[in-house]
């Protein structure tokens, strides 16, 4: 039986809020985990017009080049892109309600640097989330992520 509209809406919006609530804190204070948010290989990752190869490269940039960064997410929306995303699972059956790709839109501000006095820069960020094909966890004792970043585009807009 095909999943109901309700269950699609529930799964996609909950996946989105959970992703937003874990990804931005990781950029701030758990940078060593950044790469675990990305699918391999990802489709396209772009920051301010700079293409980035993959999740490892994103993590490297945040660990080595970024000052302490404070993100404030102010608005979030999502839509289901594909209700039959071609997930190639390894060693497990995927719940049909979760075999979807999700477009996620985030609007907020970011402050680069420690001081609260630094300016708040408005950003707009677009993600495509896809199911995590693997049944493996994200490392020792870490909870397995249901959704991974397939595509990401970050832009400062204010």
């Amino acid at each position, binding site marked *: 039986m095909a999943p109901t509209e309700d269950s699609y809406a529930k799964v996609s919006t909950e996946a989105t809020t959970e992703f937003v609530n874990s990804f931005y804190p990781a950029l701030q204070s758990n940078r060593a985990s950044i790469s675990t948010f990305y699918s391999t290989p990802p*489709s396209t990752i772009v920051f301010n017009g700079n293409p980035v190869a993959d999740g490892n490269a994103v993590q490297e940039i945040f660990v080595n080049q970024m000052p302490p960064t404070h993100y404030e997410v102010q608005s979030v929306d999502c839509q289901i892109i*594909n209700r039959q995303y071609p997930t190639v699972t390894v060693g497990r059956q995927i719940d049909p309600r979760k075999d979807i790709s999700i477009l996620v839109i985030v609007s907020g501000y970011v402050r680069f640097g420690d001081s609260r006095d630094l300016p708040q820069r408005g950003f707009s960020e677009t993600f495509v989330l896809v199911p995590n094909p693997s049944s493996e966890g994200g490392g020792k004792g870490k909870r397995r992520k249901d959704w991974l970043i397939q595509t990401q585009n970050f832009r400062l807009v204010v």
Partner: protein
Amino acid sequence: MMKRGRASRGRATSTRSSTSDRGGIRKRSGAPPTKTDRDGDLAMGAGAGAIRGQRTRGGPGRPTPSGRTHALDRSINQIQKALSTSGAQANIRQGGRGGPSEQVAIRGWKQSKAASNRDGGVESLIAFLEKKLTPPDSKSGPRVKINKSRVEGDALIVSVRPESLERMLQLNGFSFAGAPLAVEKFDQASAPLLNSVPAQNGTTPSTADTKAKMTAILGKRYYQDSKLLDLSKLGTDPDLVAMGIFGTTSTESKFFPALMKVWELNFDNTTARREAVESVSLADNQLANITVVTTLSQTFPDLKNLDLSNNNFADAQALIGWRWKFRKLQFLDLTGNPFSADPTFKDSMLKWYPELKILNNTQVRTDEEIAAQKKTPIPVRAPHFHDEGQIAENFIRAFFTGYDGNRADILNGFYDTTSTFSLNVNTSAPRALQTEPAPWDPYLKKSRNLLKISHLPARMSRTYTGVEKIRELWTALPPTRHPDIVAHPEEWLIECFPIPGLPDMTGQSSTGVGGFLIMVHGKFEEDNSGKVETRSFDRTFILGPGNGVGGIRVISDVLCLRAYGGNEAWQLEPQPAAAPPAAVPAAAPAANPAAPVGYGLPAPGKTDAQVQQEQLVMQLSTKTMMTLQYSELALSGNSWNMEAALKNFQELKTQGQLPPEAFLPGATA
């Protein structure tokens, strides 16, 4: 350079702000009151083009012909509003619950030991009052809080809940830090509004008359050629003295906001207002803090030069209300203020004003330093625009023209039964300076901000799927005007790249089809019952193959609306030999100049596997800047595994085994 007046350098001691007849903008000499009978116009000669002085020609007190009376009434209403609400500008602590409250004036604390505190003792006085108001025996009751207070001259005016009033009044005569307090109920009527202040000739001028006088004063002090508004030595201005502005603390605190309101009313639009003044002098006004002049930063947010010399600012606290304001300030003069001698002075001002170059007539920053600090950790680059066969470009051009002109056409042309639209409003987004955020009423009930809309039925009803539902919503949304993409490329930031895994309408592909992800950032104008509002937006589309115009369809369309935030954020950072910014799709550099039209896109006779391979090739090419041929070689040699191909590429590159022709023209190997 700014015009300034330095005639009277001699200043009184720093105690002047501690008595009731001191502080703020104050008369200095006993200039005889002169009865002014000026015309209401801003007298600026030929340069009055931008100024709406004509509106009051003939004297604002008289009825004006040709139907201008209404506009005049309206502006008078605004002044009255400004006058009666401007007292709030003086609040130093605000907030707390609404509801009825009583105002109480506390005096005598300026003679206490606490008066030497950084804040003049206000904080500790409030703490003292809160403690005394909380009954000592009430263990269960909540601690009484004073949430609203302001300083007027020697009085601290606090708002308390009616039930605390009696206890508060009993504090009269209590000793606070060595000084007896005088506590009495603060009667609003005893704090007359500016428009009811008896002038020194005994008459009570009307608001229109007050406006006319203020307009005349502004006209006299505005220098169009140098874009200077000289508000120095206000205390000795015979016209102001005649108006009785400095009679009481209350009128004095309301005068400046009203003056700013009058200034603003003389302009038809914000742009003209913003461009009219680059420099303001508030020199020689014996200001101990900016409380009474704080609205300056709202009226002139783009100010470049500010002369505050020869006042009484003792420390950063005295100017705290202007921290982070005046983001374009380049020149600041605080000579002749005790604060200038403070060891933290220079650092604080550099921190507060990111473009400050000259402080107290000394260069404190170079242009290069200002440019360098604008850099973000992730450099701002030209848009990542990877179109194929101008598919995305043509869509964007058609979309925004159509969305402004005929939304139904756009829907019929590009949307189908499964196209989805939703919008979300970021009501608290950072915004450009001096933009008054337009109300969000037309959108809020449709906004699907998941942070605010948490119930599933609401989340579902705010998703619009199919042409009919989207049409219904779009018809209800206000009409828009987006800037022309070709004529105003700087207003737009458009990015686009291919994405895989989209639903296949034909149902033939089990692995999904390829399409485009398009992200557009810009602004639009909206007519809101006669008033034109400017808003910023971020709009993301997903295009896939379909039966619409050009063989495409919109799969997803998400619109995020926010207050106008300008376009500075995506202007390229200055770089040595910077390439010209390319914000228009047509001018954007093609990432794969060699990519033939339709490459990476589904086409008749092309297998899904082929499309996917082409997309992988383009991705690798984008990442490595290798040509399509070499990218294809790298992928096919690594079983079409992107990760392996990238690794292989890195190895070969490190070993220097890749020939120059492996890279795209212009790429730095």
